[in-house]
C-alpha cells in the first residue's frame, strides 16, 4: 500500500486550507492532503463533497478522514456509505483533535509507516499536552 491520503473535513474552507498548508510543510509532498470544507462561500460540510474529495486520493493507499465538529462526523459517515466498496474498504474516520491529529499523523505517514501507526499517532494526540510539563 502507498502512503495514506488525508481528507480534511471542516466547516470552514480557510481552516482546512490553512491546516493543509501547515501540515504539508511538515510532512512533505509525499502525503496527499485534500480539503472537503465549506459550502460554497458559507460554513458547512457536505457528504457529497467528501465523496468527491475521496475520489481524488491515490488508489493504492488508505484514506483518512479528519473532521472538525459533530455534524461533520455525520457527513463523514454518510460519505463512507455513499462510496463504492473499493474506496470505502480502505477509508477510516479518525477521532482526533483536528490540527494536532493531522500534523502528527501526516508526519508519521511521510515516514512510510503502516496505516495503523498513522491512525494511532492521530488518536494519541488527545493525550499529548501541547506545553511540555
Amino acid at each position, binding site marked *: 500500500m502507498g502512503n495514506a491520503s488525508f481528507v480534511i473535513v471542516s466547516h470552514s474552507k480557510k481552516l482546512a486550507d490553512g491546516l493543509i498548508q501547515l501540515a504539508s510543510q511538515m510532512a512533505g509532498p509525499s502525503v496527499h492532503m485534500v480539503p472537503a470544507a465549506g459550502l460554497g462561500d458559507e460554513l458547512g460540510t457536505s457528504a457529497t463533497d467528501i465523496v468527491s474529495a475521496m475520489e481524488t486520493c491515490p488508489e493504492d493507499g488508505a484514506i483518512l478522514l479528519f473532521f472538525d465538529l459533530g455534524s461533520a462526523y455525520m457527513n463523514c459517515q454518510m460519505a463512507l456509505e455513499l462510496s463504492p466498496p473499493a474506496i470505502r474498504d480502505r477509508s477510516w474516520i479518525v477521532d482526533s483533535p483536528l490540527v494536532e491529529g493531522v500534523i502528527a499523523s501526516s508526519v508519521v505517514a511521510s515516514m512510510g509507516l503502516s496505516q495503523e501507526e498513522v491512525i494511532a499517532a492521530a488518536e494519541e494526540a488527545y493525550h499529548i499536552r*501541547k506545553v511540555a510539563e
Partner: protein
Amino acid sequence: MVTHAKSPDLTKTWAFLTKRQVFDLIRKNLVVNLEQGLHARPASVFVRAANAFQSEIRIGKGDKLTNAKSILGVLSLAIAKGQEMILEIDGPDEEEAASSLEQIILSKEV
C-alpha cells in the same frame, strides 16, 4: 526469634539498570543551531530521522524530557535557536542515531 532486616534487593536494581542501559546510554547536551529552531519543518525532519533508528530516543529541555519520535512531543518543547537541549539515546544503534541527530541539531537549516 530475631529476623534480620531485609537487605535491599540489589539484583532487582541491577536488572532494572541493565535493562534501561543506564550505563551505556548516550547523553548529549547540544545548543540548537537551526535558524528556525526545532519547530514546524525542522522538527518534522528531526522526528523522521529519529524514527529511522531502533534505539529509544528522548529529547529534553530544562527538566522536561519527551519521546523524540513523536512530532507533538518535540513540538511541545518549543526549542528555539540558541537554546540548550538534551538528547538521550539508548539502544543497539545509539551511536549512529546520536551522530545523525546531532548533525541535524547543529545544522543551520534542514
